[in-house]
């Protein structure tokens, strides 16, 4: 769920660019440092970016009878961490704007803030919380992906409400309107993305355990640790 091109007033566009810039610059510095230290990681980061982009082409059934697509940032935050996702999400959002006409260049700052910063950090917080509480990893993945999606949708609604306060009921009325309209697809979608994440994670744990260990997502198995 992105804000379309030209939808925000120019002052809001500038403000959201200013808010998002420090996070994206921090993420970009991490990416540069990582790629200088481990040049081979560039290709893996690029693969992660392409995966996030292509994931948005996978249609999920929605309660309204239509279908929608996952954001992919929750899974990315669990696998690669939120700072890297701030940069990768910016790249993905630019691609979505220029290749899919989804989102936009003027609204890039606002969309990066909701999908590339708040979503991954909220998702990552739930993943870490679940690990601290020693919950099952599947529960952690479900919560991370579902809340990354939900928080993205809530922030986008708030951004639109601030830009277009309701003439009768003001900011609160506008927020209720946008949350209500997008809840029809976004709440079921968040739950569906959580379930999808669990299915993906279970399969990855079986067939790509060494890669997940390398990323620091899972601990090595006992026999691997000894080896």
């Amino acid at each position, binding site marked *: 769920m992105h804000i379309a091109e030209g939808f925000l007033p120019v002052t809001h566009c500038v403000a959201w660019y200013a808010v998002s810039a420090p996070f994206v610059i921090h993420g*970009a510095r991490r990416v540069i440092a990582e*790629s200088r230290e481990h040049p081979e990681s*560039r290709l893996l980061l*690029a693969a992660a*970016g392409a995966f996030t982009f*292509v994931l948005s082409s996978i249609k999920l059934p929605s309660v309204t009878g239509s279908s929608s697509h996952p954001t992919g940032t929750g899974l990315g935050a669990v696998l690669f961490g939120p700072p890297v996702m701030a940069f990768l999400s910016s790249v993905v959002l630019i691609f979505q704007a220029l290749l*899919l*006409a989804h989102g936009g260049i003027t609204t890039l700052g606002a969309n990066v803030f909701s999908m590339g910063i708040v979503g991954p950090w909220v998702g990552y917080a739930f993943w870490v919380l679940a690990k601290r509480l020693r919950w099952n990893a599947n529960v952690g993945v479900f919560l991370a992906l579902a809340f990354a999606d939900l928080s993205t949708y809530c922030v986008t609604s708030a951004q639109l409400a601030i830009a277009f306060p309701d003439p*009768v009921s003001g900011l609160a009325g506008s927020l209720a309107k946008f949350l209500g309209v997008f809840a029809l697809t976004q709440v079921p979608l968040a739950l569906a993305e959580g379930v999808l994440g669990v299915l993906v994670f279970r399969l990855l744990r079986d067939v790509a355990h060494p890669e997940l260990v390398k990323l620091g997502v899972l601990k090595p198995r006992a026999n691997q640790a000894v080896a």
Partner: protein
Amino acid sequence: MSHGLALDRAAWSSPWRTRSVRDKGVLSLGLLVAAVSLPPLPGDAAIVVVCLALLLGPIDVGAARLGRILWLPLVSIAIGVATVAVSVSWDAGVRLAVTPEGTAMAGHLAVRALAAVLAMFTLACSTPMVDLFSACRRARVPAPLVEIAALVYRFTFGLLESAYAVRDAQGARLGMVNRRTTMRSAGMGASALFLRAWDRARRLEEGLTGRGYTDTLVTLERPRRRSGAFLALSVAGLATLVAVSVAWEVVR
């Protein structure tokens, strides 16, 4: 996704592809900034007309392709505009109403968003991503960042092919007949894509390392046509748009 490929194909086949990114960037980003800054009438309405003339004229997108790439942003704009047009109040129970203020705001918003989308299309439909990466390198954006963005672009098309192949195979095996099987197929498909992305990255890395890859994948570039006349005409056109809009506001 066909609209996405349509945008990319339009960029590669555009007669304006040979123009320099600087020239096209000044025109397109100028139109984009004007679209979100000027009042809807006459500024944004004029931008809509100018952009349509450019897209169907020298950029040569074609009416049918323009329709295909325009429908997604139009649906997105329509949902947002409809939400802005309707007012909600809850003092005496939840009540929805259409107010003159809400309608005016929605009308302005629709024209502005349409103008901005079409302005963005003038760049997206005439400039392939690889040309933008080259422009970023010349603008001294850190090489690793441009390199990763370029690799994302290269990986994307291979993965999209894989995604279509996986989806078609799942559909042929009745993997999309109901909600449950669709979810399961989507999970399997996403996992397969992740593993393919990972495997391709690893194999590419091994292959490139063997060929001495250290920092960037250097490719030859065709020289791009820079035109002072094009640039001057773009700046003059944008200045005229702004002047007419400001004069209209003053006179009104």
